[in-house]
């Protein structure tokens, strides 16, 4: 089974600044990590590989330094890493990003499954996973919390219908766990519940250090230049504001039981004023 895991390198802290001119994030000078939600995707892929064999290719789009994220993913158990990097890709919104990633995935040859994180902790849109599925016309399951059935592809019969295998997954949605059957190839975005990520092993780290990471630039991809980067992005950031952090609320100190009773009394009055307490039953 060939599993593709697109990941993103994100700022380590949440205190990133934005370029007031372009409205995009300034990444320089901030520590970076693999998007924490992508770790669940990597772990999911590694477990599938352990159970059913195959290989895992991870890829990321970003500055040259994003290679570091790929090495971390390799240390966790991915086999190969591919870096997609070019000035032409800078400032991509989720539409352009999913396009570029989809075109890069097309260069990887045949694959059976794409596993992605549910969203990235910086952009926080969750739009790139379903976007890639749309570009590649793959069935998609988002918010996957469990994979309950894996029918791996039959190696000798890739071309025959029905021989590509399939999955049964459970999506964590508002009403519960929705059960979905998907044929392969397919795309999943996964949530934390699916797989607690492992720490990289020493052997993994050695492999990651030695791994050759091929670089794909715009020239290496079959891409429409008008779809790339800031210029190719349908959405434009027009204003960035830093909202007021505090709400100027009331803080009541309640050091003993009497004070607690008073504080709760005040809280109930406050909630009543805001119409937040259950209403009296109507006759």
């Amino acid at each position: 089974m060939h599993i593709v895991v697109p990941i993103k390198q994100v700022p380590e802290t949440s205190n990133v600044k934005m370029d007031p001119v372009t409205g995009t994030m300034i990444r320089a000078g901030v520590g970076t990590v693999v998007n924490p939600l992508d770790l669940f995707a990597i772990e999911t892929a590694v477990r599938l590989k352990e159970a059913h064999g195959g290989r895992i290719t991870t890829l990321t789009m970003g500055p040259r330094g994003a290679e570091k994220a790929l090495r971390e993913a390799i240390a966790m158990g991915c086999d190969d890493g591919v870096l997609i990097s070019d000035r032409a890709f800078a400032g991509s919104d989720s539409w352009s990003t999913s396009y570029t990633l989809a075109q890069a995935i097309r260069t990887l040859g045949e694959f059976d499954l794409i596993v992605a994180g549910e969203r990235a902790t910086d952009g926080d849109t969750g739009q790139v996973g379903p976007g890639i599925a749309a570009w590649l016309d793959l069935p998609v399951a988002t918010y996957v919390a469990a994979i309950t059935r894996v029918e791996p592809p039959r190696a000798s019969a890739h071309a025959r219908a029905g021989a590509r295998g399939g999955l049964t997954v459970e999506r964590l949605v508002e009403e519960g766990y929705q059960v979905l059957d998907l044929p392969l190839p397919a795309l999943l975005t996964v949530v934390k519940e699916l797989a607690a990520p492992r720490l990289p092993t020493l052997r993994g780290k050695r492999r990651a250090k030695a791994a050759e990471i091929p670089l794909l630039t715009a020239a290496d991809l079959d891409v429409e230049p008008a779809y790339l980067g800031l210029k190719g992005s349908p959405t434009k950031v027009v204003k960035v504001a830093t909202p007021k952090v505090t709400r100027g609320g009331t803080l009541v100190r309640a050091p003993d039981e009497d004070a607690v009773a008073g504080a709760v009394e005040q809280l109930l009055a406050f909630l009543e004023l805001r119409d937040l307490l259950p209403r009296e039953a109507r006759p």
Partner: protein
Amino acid sequence: MSFVWTLAEQHEGRLKAVSFELLGRGRALADKLDTKLASLLIGDGVDDAQLQSLVHHGADEVYAIQDPRLAQFTCETFSNVLVHLIKTYQPSVILAAATSTGRTLMPHVAVRCHAGLTADCTELDIEPGTGHLLQTRPAIGGNIMATIKTPDHRPQMATVRPKSSRPLPADRSRAGRVIAVPLDDVLVDGRAQARGFRSDAVDFVNLEEADVVIAGGRGMKKAEHFALLQGLADALGGAVGATRDAVDRGWVGYPHQVGLSGKTISPRLYIGAGISGAIQHLAGIKTSETIVSINSDPDASLHQVADFGIVGDLFQVLGELQRRLDERRAAGHAEPGAPDREERA
């Protein structure tokens, strides 16, 4: 045609509350653009009375595409239906809920229609002069509000957080058309098959649609103490949430987790008990209408973003709060339930 569309959602034949919230948003935009507002339902089993209530809450037209094959969400078929409708009617603006369905369907459709899409908007407006949709959303864990527009592509698409606005009051005198649109077989993508819902799920909670969420953090000290929160949630008509820390310690299941690696919620009332207020947790609750914090540490970050905070022993406070709510219920016949359940029978 410069229609504004909102996407209604249903579950087992019942329209979800967010369908009506979106109409309130859409009405304001349509009025500014001097155009019509349509509500689109892709689903099954929603009766005429409910479809009419979409008109009462602001829609000029309701397009109902109902078929047993649309009873449950599958991205490919829903996307085919929506793309087909967009190409036929060419709306200018489409709003969907930032639910598991909206956040899956909208990016899929945006790619196929070459449209701009902004996730999780908290404010929407029309730019004077140009008529472009201005979409404001929290970015980078809510530390920044970014306003985004899509100048050169149509439709302009946005998802909106459930509970981030109230529906308009029902106006039964409003007139509007309800149009049933049959599902064309060619739009059905048979690849992914929805098999219903797991019936044996324990410890599941619908946090996103709760009006009241009472969440516990490390200060709750152990799993058993979450029963205290459940008691209060029952009394307030709400649901129990938790921080990542509490979930990682195994005190409650992952469906309860609120924050960057869990759910983003905007309830009318959020109460945090024993929660310090890590930035990752705050990102998930910042758009709550009212925030209450209970923590013995006066410097807890959650106190700083709260509308009302109590610095005190959380077990004393929770106990007293429960006692008072029980008293109130016994004396005043208060009915537990959503504090502001919309009437739309």
